């Protein structure tokens, strides 16, 4: 699904963030990208989303070299990226409207997709994420958890096969965060969605990632990967994993 070969990237003339970086992720895997701030984890996500482009090397998603955002990749950011001037309903419909706007041209929308009944599909996602009552509210009027659910619904309404998330739950209270984490884990388990979650929280990485990619101080040259078996948080396996991740992060702090 994701294949990075010798990827090099830096902002402007500053220090390189990735140098000859290789990394592979298979379809259906659940990944977490872990690292302290400034390590380049969000940069990696933007590269995967096709919003930034490597200076050197090849970045393939779904088998193709990425030149622009890929229609089947969903991206969810920490500040939700909802349009403040559109209601929850309009926000969830946004991706579908953009597809209608261009038609199935293969660039902005998958070539093989029949644009669905927008209203029906939006209603479906509104009720599935418990947003029916907030449908006509503006993002400024609803809670952080509702905003994040709206952002997830907007992305899932486009039927992605790869879901990229940048610190998606960082600003939520604990119960909301746990509910949404479970929801995302189920997307991976039940729908076979490939998920990549960027986080600075070791616990979240251990919970959401079956595999964890640990980034250190830039430039990152090799992918340090930790694998984990599904384990409940609080179990001794999970504790061991968290301890291992903590030790990997420490030298770079």
């Amino acid at each position: 699904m994701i294949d990075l070969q010798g990827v090099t990237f830096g902002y402007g003339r500053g220090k390189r963030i990735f140098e000859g970086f290789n990394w592979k992720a298979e379809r259906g895997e659940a990944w977490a990208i872990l690292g302290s701030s400034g390590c380049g984890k969000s940069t990696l996500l933007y590269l995967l989303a096709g919003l930034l482009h490597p200076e050197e090397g090849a970045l393939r998603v779904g088998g193709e070299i990425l030149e622009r955002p890929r229609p089947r990749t969903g991206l969810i950011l920490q500040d939700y990226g909802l349009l403040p001037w559109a209601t929850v309903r309009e926000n969830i419909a946004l991706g579908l409207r953009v597809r209608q706007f261009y038609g199935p041209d293969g660039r902005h929308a998958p070539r093989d997709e029949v644009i669905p009944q927008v209203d029906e599909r939006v209603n479906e996602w509104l009720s599935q994420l418990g947003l029916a009552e907030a449908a006509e509210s503006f993002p400024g009027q609803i809670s952080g958890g509702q905003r994040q659910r709206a952002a997830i619904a907007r992305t899932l309404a486009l039927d992605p096969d790869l879901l990229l998330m940048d610190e998606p739950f960082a600003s939520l209270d604990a119960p909301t965060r746990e509910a949404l984490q479970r929801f995302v884990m189920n997307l991976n388990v039940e729908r076979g969605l490939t998920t990549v979650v960027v986080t600075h929280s070791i616990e979240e990485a251990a919970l959401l990632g079956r595999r964890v990619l640990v980034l250190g101080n830039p430039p990152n040259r090799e992918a340090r990967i930790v694998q984990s078996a599904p384990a409940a948080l609080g179990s001794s396996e999970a504790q061991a994993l968290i301890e291992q991740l903590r030790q990997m992060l420490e030298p770079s702090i």
Partner: protein
Amino acid sequence: MKRRSLLLAVLVLAVGWELLALVVNRPILPSLALVLKEFVLEFPGELGGHFLASAWRVVASMLISIALAAPAGLALGQYSALNRIFSPVIYLLYPIPKVVLVPVVILFLGINDLSKIVIIFLILFFQILVLVRDQAATIRPELLYSVRSLGAGRRALFRYVYWPASLPAVLTALRQSIGTAVAVLYVVELVATQRGLGYYIYLQGSTLFDYPKMYAGVLAMSLMGLGMYFTADILHRKLCPWQFTQQP
């Protein structure tokens, strides 16, 4: 604002006028009733023609200003390199009272509607430009990333992000500058024209000494400004409802 309190304010102003007219008791301040009578009589005829000539000048200037200033403001707000080049120029040009350019513009463009429209345009253009630029600069890159990840290219970004994001700034700029625009309209209509409310007011007041008609012209000009202000306000509420909702 409640409709009732607006009506009450109108009533207070009308009573104040009548009282003042009684106290002054001279032809230069006729009673409101007389002015209203003159307004009703004149508006379907001569005054209405002048009103339309004036309204056309302001509306045309507004439309041209929006068409040119909104995209320019968006570009400046989004491309900081561009803004670095133009920002000092705008900084110097913005505070210049454009109305002093009336003779210059007339020399270049002639004594026609165009020169008058251009003067008002110069004022509105900078107001809209600056407000839209500052608004566009607040569009966060994360929001653009999110929408681009949904498949939006340049056209869809304009349709779904840039346009709705700058609409409130355009309407706010319009509302704020309507007063100035109408004031400048009066000044430009004093010069080299025989159509327009400015000309009408000046002619009735200073040449024909028909004060009720002069005040009818003043009333027409005030109503024009007020009508435009209300229109901008209503459009703002209709088109930007998210700015008028209660926060949780």
